[in-house]
């Protein structure tokens, strides 16, 4: 169990994962559920256990749409989406650098790419 990583996720997310009572309403409400290897309630539970590395490696991180349905539905105000975001940040920072150098981006831009996706990409990868 990686305590320092867990502490980092706790602090970054601002979420007290111990408030979870394992009702699963987050996963019940999640529109990306079937796309995910680890589901929202598992994110919360695994972070509580300190079992964060598998989450960081999982594609599930990037399947979360950050739609906040789980936050809206959670009866205990646990806010799973914030946990996912924090783990995502942990994954990004662990690699030390941004995935892309800003200069590389213009060449990769596709005219059909929605503006919002670009912004989202920046938000995800440049923190």
């Amino acid at each position, binding site marked *: 169990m990686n305590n320092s990583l867990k502490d980092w996720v706790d602090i970054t997310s601002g979420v007290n994962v111990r408030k979870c009572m*394992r*009702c699963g309403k987050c996963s*019940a*409400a999640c529109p990306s*559920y079937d796309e995910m290897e680890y589901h929202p309630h598992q994110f919360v539970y695994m972070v509580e256990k300190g079992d964060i590395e598998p989450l960081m490696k999982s594609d599930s991180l990037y399947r979360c749409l950050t739609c906040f349905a789980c936050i809206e539905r959670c*009866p205990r105000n646990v806010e799973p989406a914030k946990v996912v975001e924090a783990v995502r940040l942990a994954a990004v920072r662990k690699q030390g650098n941004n995935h892309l150098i800003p200069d590389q981006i213009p060449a990769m831009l596709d005219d059909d790419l929605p503006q919002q996706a670009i912004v989202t990409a920046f938000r995800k990868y440049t923190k």
Partner: protein
Amino acid sequence: MQRIGVFVCHCGTNIAATVDVKAVAEALGHEPGVVISQDYQYMCSESGQNLIKDAVKEHSLTGIVVCSCSPRMHENTFRKAAAAAGLNPYLVEIANIREQCSWIHKEIATATEKAVILGRAAVAKVHLNAPLTAGESPVVKRALVIGGGIAGIQTALDIAEAGFEVDIVEKEPTIGGKMAQIDKTFPTLDCAACILTPKMVECAQNDKITIHSFSEIADVKGFVGNFTVTIKKKARFVDETKCTGCGLCTEKCPMKKVPNEFNMGLDNRTAVYIPFAQAVPKVAAIDPNYCLMLKNGKCGVCSKVCSVGAIDYKQTDKFVEEKYGAIVVATGFNPIKIDKYEEFAYNQSPDVVTSLELERLMNAAGPNGGTLLRPSDKKHPHTIVFVQCVGSRCEDEKGKPYCSKICCMYTAKHAMLIREKYPDTEVYVFYIDVRTPGKNFDEFYRRAVEQYGVHYIKGMVGKVTPKSDGKLDVQAADLLANEQLHIDADMVVLAAAIEPDKSARPLATMLTTQMDTNDFFTEAHPKLRPVESATAGIFLSGACQGPKDIPETVAQASAAAAKAIGLLCKNSITCNPCVASSDELMCNGCSSCEKVCPYGAITYIDKEFRMPDKTTRIRRVASVNPAVCQGCGACTVACPSGAMDLSGFSNSQIMAEVDAICK
């Protein structure tokens, strides 16, 4: 010269683990006037009390300080011990070194230091304690039960059984409460009406019981043994003494489109109505919001058909004043409003119902005559999904933070009844935890799973979507299978959280009883005094104190009755001797104290005084009625001359405590 004994309790390790009790006893032993200071494992135990009694005799103690748990816990215990040893019980002071010291502090050094200071304050106070003798006040031998549900009914019957007069005040036109709306009861599956209605009839027939139906509490004055209550009898526009309950008016009433609250609005009633067939009292009432005669003066059909002339359109609210010795609160509960949980589509589909609505849908006296049909198309449902914990254990503002306690069991009951009556129906129950503590409760739940094949799924429903084909798409998580499910359901039943009745909060204010943050009444002690409120003479029965099922409610109702009977049996009760009194020599007669007294305990008398020059002078001075004074002390501060003081909490005693703490 004072001879004070100090007794320091270890409370096992509760105190001794964080406070060096020996050091406390040693330090307090050096306080002025202290002749003996010792510690003991459990002061409240019999041998602990004997230790105190022996010390009183051996050292001729004039005051006792016990350093132990909160005085709210054992002050009385130690006062009785002192009295048994011949010492006035009010010469005992408690230093609270458990709840307010050992339990909140961690470091032994500082906790011990604080315990010594708290003990020192108690010693300083006890130096100034005076022996007090409690006065007596008479007890009115009549009880009031507020609320006529199963809790109120049981309490009233028990009190009447003991031979005391008892009044039930019920805000609805009939007694019966929530239980009257329920179909079957867990875990025995016997019919609720079959066990409740005989009790309702018993109430009506018992000549010790008076039912004030369609009435509310308007005002409460007085104190234990002597409450004066104003009851507001709401206008029902039907003379209770004349109406025979024949029901002819309800048949003839032309206004037939009034949502029927007894059936949770699932069908309609008439403007003049009797809530249900077994209502007690079986007397009609006219709903002024719908009655054509009361609204625009055109109709009068009910008045014409009534053979006994009971209809009275001019009736107004009446106020009656009654005196009671004891009051039992039994205001009960209601399911919360779940409109705010948009994800369950309660407002979008009539086929999403609450459990209490399902209860009416399945009831033989309900809108469908006992056949379970979908409200939308009156067809037989084949797939039913139950969702538990809707609004319970919920920290946001939509719900309640507590467990509503009854939902697991009634959901199992519903599931089982449906599977028994309609075996072709698939029943799914989504649960977070299944909580079944209670006699035969878990067996009952297991029976639903094992015998009746109810599908219990660990997880929550995330979204209910009404579909064009009339079905409901239920999206949910199965946490154990680790999958997200979609169920095509015909009906969804929501186990809504329960909350105290809205009338409870203003009632608590009138009764000066405490409530918790959820508006449940607070009991005097969670374990040892569960049916008493902290206010003497006010008792708690049923779900007004916290979520309860029927067996628990009835048990608590009888317990509250026993407590009330215990009070009513007495001819008089000992008053709190810690009351205010005025030093006539210092009183200016200025009337300040009278103006702040909430009980009207202060009057003024003209009294003769011998003056130093041998003349007599008549002066107006305050006089406190000790039976009426409750000892709040408001007058002591209002008094400009300091003539008014409070026994047990005198100016000099509190000042001595301040000094001891600030030394």
